């Protein structure tokens, strides 16, 4: 087991692109080797050693045996955990955009808030956001047909607009409220919103959206299919989006 601890040396203002902060990049590397990896602060290439205090305990052959602990504020570090295949990342505070993008495996835990595009295009693994998540949880890149394809994202607080846009698989659980239009063009993912939301499921063709709180505005594109119980609680089941001959299932209390 290799444990790598990163402590930011300063409060970054310009965002740092830190796609090298993954178990895959760190596996088997010494502290100085990790410190030599390059992140970009705006247009400035900067070795991680300039940005973080780095401590390494133990060693690992593969990403699966790497644990990265980030102690301090990385609310201005983007792309942490991008494309990771295994291992763990623990972020004590907030994290910037695209955390866990294209993630394939492993676990990311964010104790604070996640900025937009957490879990963008992820295909596997697990992301837990203990605070709030901003826009586009588990969504895709502009123009791509699929967002999240697999894995699970849990947001313990609220999530903002467009959660699960173009989702093709996997699961998103939002314990708080979701902003507008969750599950847009859902093509096979499962989204559970325990709080309130508005306009869910537009253009959904496959998959499931369950809203346990209030739906402020229902899209005028769903066929009501009666009452169904999920885990002992009764929901009204809708099927749609009818415009796209969708077979998506939307459960509303």
């Amino acid at each position, binding site marked *: 087991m290799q444990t790598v601890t990163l402590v930011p040396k300063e409060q970054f*203002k*310009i*965002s740092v*692109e830190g796609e090298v902060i993954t178990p895959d990049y760190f596996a088997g590397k010494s502290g100085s080797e990790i410190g030599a990896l390059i992140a*970009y*602060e*705006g*247009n*400035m290439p900067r070795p991680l050693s300039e940005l973080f205090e780095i401590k390494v305990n133990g060693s690992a052959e593969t990403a699966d045996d790497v644990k990265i602990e980030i102690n301090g504020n990385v609310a*201005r570090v983007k792309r942490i955990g991008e494309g990771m295949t295994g291992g763990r990342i623990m972020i004590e505070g907030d994290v910037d*955009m695209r955390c866990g993008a294209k993630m394939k495996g492993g676990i990311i835990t964010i104790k604070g808030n996640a900025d*937009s*595009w957490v879990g963008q295009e992820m295909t596997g693994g697990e992301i837990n956001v203990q605070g709030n998540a901003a*826009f*586009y949880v588990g969504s895709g*890149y*502009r*123009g791509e047909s699929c967002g999240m394809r697999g894995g699970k994202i849990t947001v313990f607080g609220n999530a903002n607009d467009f959660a699960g846009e173009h989702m093709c698989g996997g699961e998103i659980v939002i314990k708080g409220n979701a902003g*507008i*239009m969750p599950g*847009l063009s859902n093509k096979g993912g499962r989204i559970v919103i325990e709080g309130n939301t508005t*306009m869910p499921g*537009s253009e959904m063709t496959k998959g499931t959206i369950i809203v346990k709180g209030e739906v402020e*505005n*229902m*899209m*005028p*594109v*769903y*066929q009501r299919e009666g009452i169904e119980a999920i885990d002992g609680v009764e929901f009204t089941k809708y099927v*749609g*989006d*009818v*415009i796209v001959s969708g077979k998506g299932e939307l459960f509303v209390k």
Partner: protein
Amino acid sequence: MIIKDVLCPFCGCLCDDLAVKVENNKVVDIMHACKIGESKIRGHDRIKAPMMRDNKNSEFREVSYDEAINESARILANSRRPLLYGWASGLCEMMKKGVLLTEEVGGIIDNTASVCHGPSALGVHEKGLPTGTLGQFANRADVVVFWGCNPVHAHPRHMGRYSVFNKGFFTNKGRRSRKVVVFDVRKTDTANLADEYVQVNPGEDYMVLSALRAIVAGRVDVVPDTVGGISREKLVEVAETLKGAKFGIVYFGMGLTQSRGKYKNIDNAVSLVTELNAHGKHSIIPMRGHYNVTGFGNVCAWETGFVNAVDMSRGYPYYNPGETCSNDLLMREEIDAAFIIAGDAGAHFPAQSIARMGKVPVINIDPFHSATTEMANIVIPTKVSGVELEGTAYRMDGVSLRMRKLVDVDFPSDEEVLDKIIAKVREIKGASS
């Protein structure tokens, strides 16, 4: 001397039928222009010379072009996250230089579309855009929809030249050849000229568009009694009007791009129009604001692959509105220098964004004293493109035309200033590497 076929350097209509009388290098008469175009060509008080100040609250002092250019280059070359914003009231020739400068300094280039039709581009990423040139609509459209736009005010000659009152090949009765429908949240002066005004609750356009799509798809059964403040009966009636068109055209504006849902409204409107093509021919087109904002999107796309909001900090383009647009960056306080050219961020960004701009060095390149000038440290006056300088602009429908020069002035062009800044940036960067 009367110069004919003059192009108007104001709005996206890019009217090209103006005649301008010039005597002794002065514009003395302007024919065929709208009130705004005439005002633009006649001109206003100019910034007379480059100016600089260290403190944004102190008075400007006049400086030489070289001094202002060199200082601008120094600021940009030493910046880690410079924003280069504006561009829309300039010519394509200078936009190319803008992309190059952005590469040189590893900055972000963004144009005024990010507070205008930027969401329309995001809608195009989702669904495409069935569209055409304005003459196609003029000659053929028998059903004309204005959705969230007000051409009487924003594009004063649009309805006369292209969309409503003019005669075309298949629309030879002019206004009587067309049924005009306006969707808006308030009864605008455009709505007063329509055959049908449909009032939408603010922020509910998306649901109204979906309801119309459902009706067109034959699923009126799922549509509730009212959607967005409009009765189902009314929606059915409008859907029938649209389906009955031989050629329908939807012109849309910031009523869709700036209201709740933003780009999703465009996405949905494009889908409605696409689906209507099962019945007749239908097209849709954004009503672009600045006369060459469409040109920026084209130049940026062919230069970088992306339409706007391009981050060059890694030496290659990265695009992601929500992350790389001016207001995203300003609200995050990431920017450490701002270069504002041919667009007025100061007058058209939310106050909180501008306050963030107030904290960094601002370079303002503009012929006129704008709200951005108030926030600037360096001001460099240039020629008025399309009046004092010829070059390329793109009409809202993507038709590229060559702007004419009417009078000569001593100011440098935007392109010349950019060339000099690029050369100086290279010198500074070359010396430090």
